[in-house]
C-alpha cells in the first residue's frame, strides 16, 4: 500500500516536473522570457518558470541540473564551456533574439549624437563635462550596468574598445533603474537595451565611422544592420533534455513568438 502511494507520488511529481520548464539567467532576457512564458501558458502549452540572477547563475544552474534552460546575454565563457565538458554535458545554443543597445541621456540634453570615440572617452572617464562635446557646462554622470552583467561586457568590448569603465561610474543593478536615474539626472548618460526605451529619456544617434554618418537606434536600423551596437541573446540547454524544452524554444522561434520579441522591443532573428 505504502509502496503504491510512494510510487504514485513520485509519478505525479514526475508529471508535474515534465510540464514545467525552468528557465534561469540573464536579467536582460527576463522581460522577454517572461512574456513568452505568459503567452506559452495562455496558448495552453505548458508552464515555464522564469528566474533571474544573471547569465552566470543560469549557466551554473544548467551545470548542476537545477534549470532546464539557461538564458544568457553573452556567449558562454571558455571556463564555463570547459566545466560543462568535464561534467559530460553536451550543450546546445539557440539565438532567440537580438538586442540593440542604445545610449541615452536626459531629455533636456542638447546633444543628440555622438561618435564611438566620444562614447569611449565618456565611459572611460576621459571626457568629464558636456561642454567638451559642445553641450552645456554640466558634469557628465555616467550610469552603467553591474560589471558582471553581459550587457556591461558587451558594451565594454564593442563600444569602449575593450577598455575598462572609469572608477566613478554608477552601477545599477538593473536596466530599469538606469532609465529611471537618467530621466532624473540632468547630466546623465547611460546605455540600455532599446526594449527599455521610453519617453522619459533621449536616445542618441551613434557614429561608428568617426562622425561621417550617424545612425538612430531603432528596431528597423538594427534589423537592416545599419545600427552597430547589436548583440544576440542566447538560450542554452542540455541536449539530453531537448524533448522537454524544445516545444518552448520552438514557440519562441515561431512567428508568434518572434512577434512577441518585436513587441517587447527586441529584434527578431527570423524575418
Amino acid at each position, binding site marked *: 500500500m505504502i509502496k503504491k502511494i510512494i510510487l504514485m507520488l513520485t509519478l505525479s511529481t514526475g508529471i508535474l516536473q515534465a510540464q514545467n520548464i525552468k528557465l534561469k539567467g540573464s536579467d536582460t532576457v527576463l522581460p522577454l522570457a517572461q512574456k513568452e512564458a505568459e503567452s506559452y501558458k495562455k496558448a495552453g502549452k505548458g508552464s515555464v518558470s522564469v528566474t*533571474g540572477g544573471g547569465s552566470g*547563475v543560469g549557466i551554473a544552474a544548467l551545470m548542476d541540473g537545477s534549470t532546464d534552460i539557461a538564458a544568457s546575454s553573452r556567449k558562454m565563457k*571558455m571556463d564555463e564551456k570547459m566545466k560543462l565538458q568535464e561534467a559530460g554535458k553536451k550543450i546546445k545554443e539557440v539565438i532567440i533574439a537580438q538586442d540593440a543597445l542604445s545610449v541615452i541621456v536626459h531629455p533636456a540634453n542638447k546633444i543628440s549624437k555622438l561618435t564611438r570615440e566620444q562614447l569611449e572617452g565618456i565611459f572611460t572617464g576621459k571626457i568629464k563635462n558636456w561642454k567638451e562635446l559642445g553641450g552645456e557646462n554640466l558634469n557628465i554622470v555616467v550610469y552603467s550596468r*553591474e*560589471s558582471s552583467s553581459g550587457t556591461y*561586457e558587451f558594451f565594454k568590448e564593442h563600444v569602449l574598445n575593450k577598455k*575598462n569603465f572609469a*572608477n566613478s561610474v*554608477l552601477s545599477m543593478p538593473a536596466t530599469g533603474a538606469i532609465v529611471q536615474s537618467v530621466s*532624473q539626472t540632468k547630466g546623465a548618460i547611460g546605455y540600455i537595451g532599446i526594449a527599455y526605451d521610453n519617453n522619459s529619456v533621449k536616445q542618441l544617434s551613434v557614429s561608428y565611422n568617426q562622425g561621417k554618418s550617424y545612425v538612430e537606434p531603432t528596431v528597423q536600423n538594427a534589423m537592416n544592420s545599419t545600427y552597430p551596437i547589436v548583440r544576440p541573446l542566447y538560450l542554452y540547454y542540455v541536449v539530453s533534455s531537448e524533448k522537454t524544452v524544445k516545444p518552448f524554444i520552438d514557440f519562441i522561434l515561431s512567428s508568434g513568438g518572434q512577434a512577441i520579441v518585436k513587441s517587447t522591443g527586441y529584434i527578431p532573428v527570423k524575418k
Partner: protein
Amino acid sequence: MNKLFKNLQVGILAFSSLVTTITVLLIVIFLFSEGLSFFNKKPIEPGFIIAVHPDNPITFINPTECKRIFDQDITDWKEVTGHAQPITLVTLEDIGNNYSEEQMGAEMEYLDTCYNHFIQGDKGVIAMIPERNFTNKIKANKLKLDKNSIASFVQGKEWFPTAKPIAQFGAFPLLVGTFLVSLGAILLALPLGLACAIFMSEITSVRIRSYMKPVVELLAGIPSVVYGFFGLVIIVPLIQKVFHLDVGETALAGSIILGIMALPTIITISEDALQNVPKSMREAAYALGATKWQTILTVLIPYARSGITTAAILGIGRAIGETMAVLMVTGNAANTTLNILKPVRTIPATIAAELGEAPNGGIHFQSLFALACILFLITMSINLYVNFISRKKA
C-alpha cells in the same frame, strides 16, 4: 523505559539549543572555505595565460600594470621597466580576425601556430593565450603572476572583477564605502535615537510611552526593500535638489535610510539602559536640587554610558550588513571617497548585485565570498565586543 523517554526529550531540547552554534560554525566553514580559496588563485581569467615576445626582458606582471596596459594607458614597454617598444595587445579575438578558419583549423588545432606567427612578427606583443593552446610551438615568455593576497585584496583601490585578462580585486573602496555609509547613518541616528529614548524613558507619561513603543517596533518591522524603494523615489531626488548635485544617489542617501533603519535598535537599547539606572541615583540628584535635565545630563547619561555605547555599536552593526536598501540608493560606484555627497559602493550591495552574474565556483564568485567573510568578521567582532563590555559591567 519512561526514564529513557524523558532523557530523550531533554536530549532533544539540549540539541535544539545547539542549533544556533552549529549554524554559526557552518556559516564559518562555508564562507571561509569558499572565500579563502580566493587567495589560492591568480586573478587571471581561468584557462588563459599571458605571454610576451621571447626577447622581451619582462618576466613578471602585476594586476594594476596589466589593466593599464590593456586599457592602453601604458602604451610602451619602457613605462614598465622594459625596452622602448610600443605595446601590441593580442587577444584570442585578434587572432580570429587576422587568420582564416582554415589557418586556425576546424577544432582550433593550429591556433598555436597562428599565435606564434603573430608574436614573432612584433617584438612589442603581449598576448592572452588559452592555456591548452600554449604548446611548445609558441615561442614566447609566459609572464609570472602573483596569487591574490589578503593585503592586495584589502588595500587594492580598483574593483573590476571582470576586467580582462587580469581582474582587479581591490576591496578598499568597498570597505571605505561601507564604513562611510554606516558612520553617516549612526551620526544621524544616534542623536535622534538618544533623544527619543530620553523622551520615552524620562520625560513623557506612561500613556504616551505605550504609544511610542509600537511606533518603534513598526520602524523596525518595515522591510528593507520598502525603505530602499522609499529612498529611491523620495530621498534620492530630494538630495539632488537640496544640494544641487549632479546625482542624488549618494552615500548620504544610504546614510539617511540606514539611519532610520538603525533607529529602533538604538532607541530600544538606550532606553533599556536608562531604565536600568537605579532609582536611588535619580533621587539623590533631585535631593541635591538638580533639575530633571541636570539629572539626565550629569547622572543618567554617564551611568547608562556603556548601554548607549552598545546601542551605537549594534546600530552600526545593523547598518554595515544592510543590503537591499543600500543597493537601491547609493549609486554603487566603486569610488574611494570620503565625500558623503558622492556615490559609493558597499560590500553587501556588491555581493547582492554581482553574485548572480559570477560563474559559480570561479574566482569572481570566490572574491564575493571573501567579501562576505570580511562582513562576517566585522559583525562578529562587534557582537563579541558588545558581549565583552556587557559582561564587564555585570
